[in-house]
């Protein structure tokens, strides 16, 4: 298993990859991709039983990124895990590229097409019911945004997942407290999330969404037998680039040349510092 030090280095490099992809494409969802990098890092490097060689295995774990707009983080992690060459990401959003600006099954490693919000949890509920019907041992994970939880379909699925006692299902909320218009609690308060999921019959844990150990502990096994797991991950939108952190303008802001150089310099310095620790 990768050490926390190794994961920290991976996350810094993923963040660098996210910015490169977005800068190259001239478009992208910067803030939300940076907020969920550490979650994806722990999922793909410590938790999910998924690999390029076994991706068609019916017993593989399933990961569906419901907050599809954070696609750059997903693509960068999948490339690093060997699903496709990282250089292919240079075609992101380009004419005739397979790399659409939201998750698409045209890309190896992507489980479901997403992008419209409120779809991942119902799909994952279906996958988890299917797993239960077959007594299969795979687990199902989805990543939701905190703003996304205003979509009512999430709560239809939350009800069904508890009804069917889907302890093979884990929903992670990338709770960065921002959405495109502003603070989530000002646009449409989705809080209190812990109480809401608990009232729907879920086992809930709040974690620091940038703490590898806490994420690993929360994601490595279902929280409670007979209940789906909700992991409320407190995150910082734009995490890892000082001037992007917790700023709504970076929801889908693309760095200009100067900002790009400064962002990469920050990340390169952090990488050098992290390498020195190892």
């Amino acid at each position: 298993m990768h050490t926390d030090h190794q994961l920290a280095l991976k996350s810094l490099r993923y963040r660098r990859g996210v910015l490169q992809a977005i800068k190259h494409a001239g478009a992208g969802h910067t803030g939300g991709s940076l907020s969920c990098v550490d979650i994806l890092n722990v999922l793909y490097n410590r938790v999910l039983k998924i690999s390029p060689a076994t991706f068609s295995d019916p017993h593989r774990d399933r990961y569906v990124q419901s907050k599809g707009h954070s696609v750059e983080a997903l693509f960068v992690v999948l490339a690093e895990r060997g699903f496709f060459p990282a250089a292919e990401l240079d075609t992101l959003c380009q004419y005739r590229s397979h790399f659409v600006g939201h998750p698409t099954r045209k890309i190896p490693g992507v489980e479901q097409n997403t992008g419209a919000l409120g779809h991942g949890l119902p799909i994952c509920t279906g996958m988890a019911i299917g797993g239960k019907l077959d007594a299969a041992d795979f687990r199902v994970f989805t990543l939701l945004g905190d703003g996304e939880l205003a979509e009512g379909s999430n709560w239809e699925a939350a009800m069904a997942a508890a009804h069917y006692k889907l302890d093979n299902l884990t929903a992670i909320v990338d709770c960065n407290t921002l959405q495109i218009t502003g603070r989530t609690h000002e646009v449409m308060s989705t809080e209190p999330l812990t109480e809401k999921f608990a009232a729907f019959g879920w086992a809930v844990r709040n974690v620091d969404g940038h703490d590898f150990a806490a994420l690993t502990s929360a994601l490595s096994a279902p929280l409670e037998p007979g209940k789906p797991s909700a992991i409320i991950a407190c995150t910082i939108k734009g995490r890892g680039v000082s001037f992007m952190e917790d700023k709504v303008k970076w929801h889908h802001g693309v760095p200009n040349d100067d900002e790009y150089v400064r962002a990469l310099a920050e990340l390169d310095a952090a990488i050098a510092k992290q390498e020195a620790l190892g």
Partner: protein
Amino acid sequence: MYSDAAKQTAARLGLKPGRANLEEFADTLLALARADRNVLAVTSDSRGSGKLGPFGQALPQQIVELGIAEQNLVGVAAGLASVGKTVFAVSPACFLTARSLEQIKNDVAYSDNPVNLVGISAGVSYGALGTTHHSLHDFAVLRAINNLTIVVPADNYETREAVRAAAAHGKPAYLRFGKAALYTLPGEVTAPFALGKARVLREGNDVAFLATGETVIHALLAAAHLETTANLQCRVVSLPTLKPLDPTAVLAAARECRAVITAEEHMVNGGLGEAVAGVIAQAGLGTRFKIVGIPDEYTVTGSQADIFRHYGISMEGLAQTAREVLRST
């Protein structure tokens, strides 16, 4: 549903009374599910209206109930299909194809999860329950979605074959069933059902009736009526697959017949009629043409039979339309 004259015509044609397509669907699905435990029915508090009570009794492990939550119904169905289940997601067509349209577009069609969406009590089957319960938009919205086969059976035979074909198809599909008892149409031997294929139920070159679903019987009766009352030989083509539409049968009708009349239990906008018109017009043909369906208005109150009769979807109404179209040539 039928006037006395229409019943007499049906008797003269030797048509046997059948049952509702919905009942045929439920029995066919149960037989498929008994043979394969991966076949699932997924419902939204709709097992009663879907005639799936016996299915639930016989195979409780193969029916997934989701309560009154159609968005989740379709999303869950997509997830089940993605892990290898043969899924029939059963819900009233009015809710299934409006409230959960985005799930159909993205989770089923775009992600290519082979769900069979089953719209029950479709069209104006719910009659006097009114507009909230009618699905007169489903052809139009679903035709505009890529990677979705649309099947609208006209009788119990087409229903049985369509359900079996959909189960084996492995691609997203929408099947639409009403709940009125239907006559069994001719043509099982001469025009067997196949996905994507039109079925010529009666030959003739005066008027071609191109119809789908529960309107086909009325077209057939109209053709027989026009033969005895006006000495007209009219073709009747059932189009159980609305998409992909069989262009060969459409173009043959437009080339060989003096006029083409379409009939559908759907608003005249965006349904069978406009699909047929697109094929005919783009082939450069100027065949006389009329779309019969529900006009762009809130329907008159009444049963399905009342509504059909009111808008001319009946033996008498379609025969009258044929005479008018021919008179205008």
